[in-house]
């Protein structure tokens, strides 16, 4: 792991310096981080927060006064809308060794990128000159002691080098924590002696491994309160490694010998396991994994970043990492559908495109087959399907799985191939009146093919 630069003033302080900067944003990624609540407690003592305007009182000057490269990790949240945003991003790049694009705004521009459809004059005109509630003839574009606007929302990586992307609007708290811990080379939870299997209600009867499900309870620490297998869901290792593995490990070991025929449910679990147990922040749309894979390739060895992992657990996780190495696009080809429990090839078929306000989708069948536009098949996995769980189709906030193509056409091609859809591509595309707002509202600013706006 990357070590913090030696701090001469305080050699004993082993905390890692981190900075959070907010560009034009909504605060939501920070709220999401704070949503970890008690989960933050193991993390806080490891961090020296040197800049985080929404929580601590350090001013911009104090960031400017730090030495270049003094801070280990810098999180940049928000879109680049103003010159001040651009300057702050450059300053963060100078002061931090690693820059993480924190959330879909800094990854892709987010919905603010829809503003790139309009000229700056149209944008400021609507807000400051034309709005109905201006009542005293004061129409003007403010220009005193406020930073100038950029003409467009600019993708962060057009301005500075980004080391890792953590998408999501917002990224989930557990993924933020997991990513930070990965960077710090630590695991949040106290690792207990015994494994989850020993306290699993299905230990004696109905073990998920026996049913052929990839369940990681035998190498995972006990002490959890949720006990996923009770609800038929495999243990995905979120408590971290156990010191002593359980006997079921033999079964798990033999199952991991052949990973190529995994079911989609197992694939989802593998995803979560890699994130939660090994701290590989894949689930967060965290592209640093690309770099990890390069390192694995170069060195030819695969090992976890976890010290003192029991040898049997190390052997299983190594197999998973090898699988990851040999399937380099593993995280790229996974999309929201992989984590969705709805039935495809259901009794429903899309015969026309429905608007979201029409009727109410049933809770079982695929949204698309019920006629609704759901961006799941073309959106990066990572969210766990939170929208789908409350009966709302995916709108794509984790970013698209492929770039540089016409997103509307790609969506149509994909769903015609994969789902019960009985209308033609042309019909589908003509029935959706708002292509940009439907198919790429989170990523417009970053879509290289996009030629609109000014």
């Amino acid at each position, binding site marked *: 792991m990357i070590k913090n630069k030696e701090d001469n003033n305080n050699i004993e302080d082993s905390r890692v310096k981190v900075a959070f900067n907010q560009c034009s944003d909504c605060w939501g990624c920070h709220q999401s981080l704070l949503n970890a609540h008690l989960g933050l407690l193991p993390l806080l003592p490891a961090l020296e927060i040197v800049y985080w305007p929404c929580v601590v009182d*350090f001013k911009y000057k104090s960031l400017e006064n730090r030495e270049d490269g003094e801070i280990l990790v810098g999180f940049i949240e928000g879109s680049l809308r103003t010159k001040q945003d651009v300057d702050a991003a450059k300053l963060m790049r100078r002061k931090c060794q690693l820059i993480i694009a924190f959330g879909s705004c800094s990854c892709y521009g987010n919905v603010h990128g829809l503003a790139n459809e309009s000229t700056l004059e149209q944008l400021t005109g609507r807000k400051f000159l034309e709005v109905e509630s201006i009542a005293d003839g004061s129409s003007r574009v403010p220009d005193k002691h406020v930073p100038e606007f950029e003409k467009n929302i600019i993708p962060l990586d057009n301005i500075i080098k980004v080391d890792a992307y953590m998408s999501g609007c917002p990224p989930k708290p557990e993924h933020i924590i997991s990513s930070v811990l990965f960077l710090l080379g630590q695991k949040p939870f106290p690792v207990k002696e015994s494994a989850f299997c020993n306290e699993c209600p299905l230990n004696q009867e109905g073990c998920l491994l026996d049913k052929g499900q990839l369940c990681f309870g035998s190498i995972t620490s006990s002490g959890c309160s949720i006990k996923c297998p009770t609800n038929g869901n495999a243990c995905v290792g979120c408590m971290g490694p156990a010191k002593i593995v359980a006997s079921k490990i033999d079964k798990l070991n033999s199952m991991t010998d052949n990973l190529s025929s995994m079911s989609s449910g197992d694939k989802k679990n593998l995803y979560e396991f890699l994130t939660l147990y090994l701290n590989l922040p894949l689930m967060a749309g965290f592209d640093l994994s690309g770099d990890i894979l390069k390192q694995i390739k170069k060195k030819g060895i695969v090992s976890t970043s976890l010290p003192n992992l029991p040898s049997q657990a190390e052997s299983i996780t190594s197999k998973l990492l090898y699988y990851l190495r040999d399937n380099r696009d593993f995280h790229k080809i996974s999309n929201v559908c992989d984590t969705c429990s709805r039935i495809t090839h259901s009794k429903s078929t899309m015969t026309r495109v429905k608007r979201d306000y029409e009727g109410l989708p049933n809770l079982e069948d695929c949204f698309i087959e019920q006629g609704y536009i759901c961006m799941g098949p073309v959106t990066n996995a990572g969210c766990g399907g939170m929208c789908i769980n409350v009966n709302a189709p995916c709108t794509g906030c984790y970013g698209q799985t492929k770039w540089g193509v016409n997103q509307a056409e790609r969506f149509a091609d994909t769903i015609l191939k994969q789902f019960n859809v009985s209308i033609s591509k042309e019909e589908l595309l003509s029935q959706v009146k708002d292509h940009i707002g439907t198919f790429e509202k989170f990523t417009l600013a970053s879509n290289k093919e996009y030629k609109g706006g000014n």
Partner: protein
Amino acid sequence: MVKEIEVEPVTRLEGHGGLRLTLGDDGKVQDVQFNVTSTRFFEKFCEGRYCEHVPRITPRICGICPIPHHLTPTKAVEDAWNVKIPTPALKLRQLLMNAKQYSSHILHFYALAAPDFLLGPMADPALRNVVHVINKMPEVGAMAMKMMDFGQKLCAAIGGKSVHPISAIVGGMKKSLDEDIRDKFLKEIDEQIEFTKKTVEIGLKVVEDYWDVVANVGVVPTYYLGMTKNGIHDIYNGDIRIVTPEGKKIDYNVHNYLDALGEHIPEHSYATHMYYKPAGYPEGIYRANCLAMINAADKMATPLADDALKAFRDKVGQISHHTFAYHWARLIETVEAIELIKKYLEDPDICNPDCKTLDIEPREGQGIGVTEAPRGLLLYHIWSDAQGICKKLNLLVATNHNIAGIEKSLMHVAKQIFEDKALEGLKLPDPWIK
């Protein structure tokens, strides 16, 4: 020599802003500016979107109060298309609003405001934050986190996501609450009520400790903007209520908002200045948010909160201009929120799957939706075409209602500090955390 004091950025603030204070040779305060330094033009780029998609875009205006930014545009579209929603949907939305009110108010009290009081205003800036509070007062810190966690988890259970929810749809809600999930929250509700009572105790102790500050610093008469339903405090449904500096209450139907609320575009802030139109600018500058809501309400919606309101009025009077009383007012609202959460959780309707009107036709027209977000009144005015595409949008956003009021109170306090040297004679308590 003219001296400029700059604070960049203002910290523990949701949003982006700096302060600029100009002092003349004579030591007099010449100017105070609150510079809000960014805006993202949601009003413009929502044009051309499906009206029903607007509530899935606009929560990104604010990650702290995305729930009002989800429900208010939904209400506006329902108003424009003349759509009625089933009772279970209405109750789910009110529960969702109060869950947000609860977690946001607790976040504000403990994470944003408390460091000032618990460490005292003279504390080292490096330590004056919630992380230090948690380290020094772990029990209070753990309680605060359990409270925020409860509110945020309830938001997520109903809204799908606590930050940027998705479950409301024109015509109601996409899904009602599952009974087993409801039961989990019901199990915790009494503990949360106890936490709230403890928080009120801490809050009242702070008010008592700092009474000299509350009563003498930043007492600024302004107008107030709130929302009530038949005079009762309400954050989801109701009329706009203006309170004059003398305490007179004037109600406006939300459809007549343009008669009451005017916008002034300052030279120095991207967040505009709002004022009470009949009084003109700057005379009609008002403040919003909890103190305004408390000043506007004849009574609170629940018994414990109403008792708390009476105690508040016994101490500060029928109308309070005390800027530092915002914290107290916020706690009164917190009590109401947790009482209402309990009320709705106990209502079987929130698990009723009949939570969406199925037959909906878009139509050409305008609609207005209003709620009270945790930082102030939130108003969406949407124009729909016959296909249900958004032609135009006007937003009066919660924090925006306070910008002019904040600047006005800053000027007042700057004069107190730099001209009257008010701080010197002020009685400050020993900080709880040293």
